[in-house]
């Protein structure tokens, strides 16, 4: 392959006109920084705000956020959907349990193994299901999720069967609060990874093929290859989430990975607004704290019938309302604040030079 930059399009008729890009004023920058720092401080303080007794709720929520971000890479960027992420989470978790408890290797090795297993299973399923146009990936992963729940995770030699398997935390993050910080840090890492993905070659290719596979192919993008890459990255990140999930309670059982969990994960992502990192994270957080919130609600108002058992109903209602009125999810509802926070103007259109 020739280096194209050595031979650019030869003629430059005239100097390119300067591109005027919108920049916030100094006060605007300060205001945005203050809000962002506030959000950052709130996140860092959250393990202490929620209290040490309930801090595991936060760690679990962080794993859900990571799963939702991993689904975002698939749904948001390729338009394909996986209904198998409960199984991916479970595979990651049981791999971690197996490595830590059965093989007696350190926690860090378990994380690496979980990520590799996550990527590997996505590769196998993706090679089979992504060659075909349409929503076959959704169907194959759905069946995989049920297969994993009812067959794989019940094989006693690997997963300890119904009794489950232990997954001890690493020594350097053994306390509940320390582990919550570890999970939050993992969310940050995945966020950064996703950001790099979308701002480099691979992510752009993947986003292009979501819009139109034909156009992407006409630009030399290997459509099946990049769909597969997106699914493998999604699987690897879900595997990471699984390893983290395993050590939240330090004991996992097949019951933690019922196939309907997959559907809930997809609903989180769609509710938040696929294609938007902050939207997806917010969606996953709202879903994760729904049961927690309803529980507190029931404690505060004991005389009414709503409690944590209503979580799926409330979640489904939320999703339907958002889909019918804001098909782009929370990200559409909150597009202005999200825009503003990314150092762009509050209003829709940027005043760029020229116009039609």
């Amino acid at each position: 392959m020739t280096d194209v930059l050595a031979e650019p399009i030869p003629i430059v008729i005239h100097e390119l006109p300067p591109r005027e890009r919108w920049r916030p004023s100094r006060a605007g920058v300060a205001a945005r920084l203050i809000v962002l720092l506030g959000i950052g401080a709130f996140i860092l303080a959250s393990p202490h705000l929620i209290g040490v007794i309930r801090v595991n709720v936060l760690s679990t929520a962080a794993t859900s956020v990571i799963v939702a971000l991993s689904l975002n890479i698939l749904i948001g960027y390729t338009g394909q959907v996986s209904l198998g992420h409960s199984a991916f989470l479970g595979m990651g978790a049981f791999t971690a349990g197996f490595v830590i408890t059965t093989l007696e290797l350190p926690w860090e090795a378990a994380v690496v193994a979980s990520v590799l297993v996550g990527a590997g299973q996505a590769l196998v399923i993706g090679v089979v299901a992504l060659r075909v146009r349409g929503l076959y990936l959704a169907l194959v992963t759905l069946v995989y999720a049920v297969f994993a729940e009812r067959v794989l995770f019940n094989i006693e030699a690997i997963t300890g069967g119904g009794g489950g398997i232990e997954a001890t935390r690493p020594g350097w993050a053994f306390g509940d609060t320390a582990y919550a910080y570890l999970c939050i840090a993992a969310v940050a890492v995945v966020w950064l990874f996703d950001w790099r993905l979308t701002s480099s070659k691979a992510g752009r290719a993947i986003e292009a093929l979501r819009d139109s596979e034909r156009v992407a192919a006409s630009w030399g993008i290997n459509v099946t290859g990049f769909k597969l890459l997106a699914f493998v990255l999604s699987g690897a990140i879900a595997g990471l989430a699984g390893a983290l999930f395993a050590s939240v309670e330090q004991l996992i059982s097949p019951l933690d990975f019922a196939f309907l969990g997959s559907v809930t994960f997809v609903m989180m992502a769609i509710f938040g607004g696929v294609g938007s990192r902050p939207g997806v994270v917010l969606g996953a957080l709202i879903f994760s704290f729904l049961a927690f919130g309803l529980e507190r609600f029931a404690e505060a108002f004991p005389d009414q019938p709503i409690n944590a058992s209503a979580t799926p109903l409330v979640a489904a209602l939320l999703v339907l309302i958002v889909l019918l009125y804001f098909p782009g999810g929370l990200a559409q509802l909150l597009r202005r604040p999200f825009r503003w926070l990314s150092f762009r103007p509050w209003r829709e259109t940027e005043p760029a030079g020229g116009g039609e």
Partner: protein
Amino acid sequence: MTVLSVGDVSLRFGGLQALADVSLDVNENEIVGLIGPNGAGKTTLFNCITGFYTPDSGSVTIRGQRVNDLRPDQRTALGLGRTFQHVGLVRSFTVLENMVVAQHRNVGYHIGAGLLGSPAALEEESDLEERALHVLDHLGLVHLADHPLSELNYGTLKQVEVAAALATDPSILMLDEPLAGLGPKESADFGDRLLAMRHELNLTIVVIEHHVPFVLRVCDYVYVLNFGRILAHGTADEIRGNPVVAEAYLGEGASALA
């Protein structure tokens, strides 16, 4: 030298014979026109050449290499760029972002380097933008770089699409109705640009267009398709004087050509 050759390509869709034994040859640096009424099989032929359809029989050859078994993206890698009948762009991207993705095959850095944000990758990213702006400038579109596609009209979108196809750095450029949505003045300008570009960028161009005067002005050679068959082919002058073409396709417009 023949850079693109189609040999006896046939394709059926159910009961419809979309293409029947179509053959054509395109020489280096030529501009070849493909005309014919709606449904004649022009776009279908484009899709067979670029790999979106697999012909039932016949061969497609690019620079002597038979490409029948290659995917569309692999054919793009051989220097085959194209536009679509309806606007083929990524709707959620801005003009500039489209131009950057279109350079996909020429991005040198490894996917992993991009994910890790290596300095070389970041530097190449800014070079990609620079190059995109130059290509846009070439088509007089540079002032639209930061616009989302939703703000542009149809004719402008078709022009941006041509720019994106150029950004893939093709040696053979296949344009499907590039004048759609353009006025007479803009159409003439586009014709001038096309004629200039083929030398400056060393391009071979195949163009589907309904606007017959444009085709006869710009093209060195013209193929006329009707009902999936080549009805006639020849230089612009030969086509202009061909009574069969005038009768079957140009119809009442024939007098305007004479």
